[in-house]
């Protein structure tokens, strides 16, 4: 599949996959609904079913207010669903799950910690790193520095987050989300506040990270090019209450390039997704 040309891949829109093993999905949302304020309350998500395979990159797109961010909280167990079930790694989610990395639009780096210490934060909380943090301090530091190096922030570890640009902050944010080697990375519009060029730079970095580390990822975004660039599968949600109205397998070869995102195969997928969203809005 990887060797397939972009144009051939674009024609295939039905799930045919070599990237994703056919075993049980790593994340499974089954008929999940969520209403705020009880049964009579505001329905945010309406019978949503989403599957994320092991090592799969899934993007969820939709208009603002379609409950995309709510989805993030459901998967990580920060919010319980009103009905339906959420399972991660074969286990039902009943409370906050561990071993997940998260990155938001707001980088939420702590201004009182240096960038390196920010990246190392999960190692102070997540087991087994927490237990061994005294003996393995140097190793942990090296691990964080390796990640910073990978995203082009070598030498910036001693700087404070407020001394970095917005793009650099988000790179550090990605490092922090991945430093404890989570099996699942949740991204809530992490690139939305950046300018167009910085954003594309970060798509490349994100792709490199995903190709070099072993994790599944769910990206919530309203940027369609971003979704197509990064994802193996894109889910399109309708406006509130959010329902899955379209599922699209993106079989473009990896690594994908920014130049490639302007080629016909890529653009036609973006248009197809866009049409679905416009359709759902009317």
């Amino acid at each position, binding site marked *: 599949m990887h060797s397939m040309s972009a144009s051939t891949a674009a024609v295939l829109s039905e799930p045919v996959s070599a990237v994703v093993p056919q075993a049980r999905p790593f994340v499974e949302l089954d008929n999940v609904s969520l209403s705020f304020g009880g049964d009579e309350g505001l329905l945010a998500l309406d019978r949503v079913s989403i599957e994320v395979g092991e090592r799969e990159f899934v993007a969820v797109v939709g208009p603002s207010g379609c409950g995309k961010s709510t989805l993030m909280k459901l998967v*990580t167990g*920060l919010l319980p669903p009103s009905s339906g079930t959420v399972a991660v790694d074969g286990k039902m989610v009943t409370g906050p799950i*561990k071993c*997940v990395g998260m990155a938001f639009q707001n980088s*939420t780096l*702590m201004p009182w910690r240096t960038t390196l210490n920010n990246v190392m934060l999960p190692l102070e909380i997540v*087991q087994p790193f927490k237990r061994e943090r005294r003996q393995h301090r140097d190793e942990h530091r090296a691990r964080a520095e390796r990640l910073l190096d990978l995203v082009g922030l070598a030498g910036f570890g001693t700087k*404070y987050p*407020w001394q970095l640009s917005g793009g650099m902050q988000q790179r550090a944010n990605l490092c922090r989300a991945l430093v404890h080697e989570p099996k699942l990375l949740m991204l809530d519009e992490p690139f939305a506040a950046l300018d167009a060029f910085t954003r594309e730079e970060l798509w490349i970095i994100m792709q490199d990270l995903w190709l070099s580390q072993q994790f599944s990822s769910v990206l919530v975004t309203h940027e369609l090019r971003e979704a197509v660039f990064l994802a193996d599968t894109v889910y399109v949600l309708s406006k509130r209450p959010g329902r899955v109205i379209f599922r699209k397998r993106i079989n473009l070869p990896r690594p994908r390039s920014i130049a490639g995102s302007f080629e016909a195969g890529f653009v036609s997928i973006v248009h197809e997704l866009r049409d679905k969203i416009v359709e759902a809005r009317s």
Partner: protein
Amino acid sequence: MTPARRKRLQHQLMPYVLTLVLLLLWEAINRLTHISSVILPAPSEIFGTLIREHAVITEHALHTFVTSMIGFGLGVVTGVLIGFATGISPAIYSGIYPLLVAFNAIPKVALLPLFVLWAGIGAVPAVLTALTLAFFPIAVNVATGLATIEPEMEDLMRSLGARRDEILIKVGIPRAMPFLFASLKIAISLAFVGTVISETVASNDGIGFLMMAASSRFDVPLVFAGLFVIAVMAVAAYGVCSLVEERVVHWAFHARG
């Protein structure tokens, strides 16, 4: 010296220049209008008194300083404790907060007769007055700093599996530090206010007592000398707090801008 540095230096010197100008203006008006020194003594006269009476002024100033610092110290301890309890527990917050606000609305001078009744005159009612004035801004600020953690930060910590106490130690407390240090500056000024108020009515020591005694003898230059000394002490204490704040929570100054 670069122009930018010269400009910064100019700005730093401005308050001192302005003070000097005001003093000279005051001196000039006094000399021109011949106002009696019982109403408004000239700065030269005040400084003369300051030098002549320095022994007695120093003794009372020291008393006021120590009393204020004890009141301030106790205010910090109670303020931090109450603020901490209020900030980490919504239940305590909803219970204590209205009481705190109500207590703050009471003019603290009105408590003085009680303090004197319980402890007699002297340093104790002064410490208590300083304490009751100083703890409030600290408690409110610490509580605010702890209670306003960004929801995303909390989500992040919870998704890592952090316990409540871990969130408190790694996010809540560092986050509350700029709030705490901002309130210390206000609290230390209020501690001086409380001490001097108490000394004017219920003490035989301290700058407040000295000024009251001097005014009853119509020794107005000494009243002003006392005022000058208390002002210098309060400003210096504020400055020290400010300096510590910049050192300890330097990140808050940059992060905001």
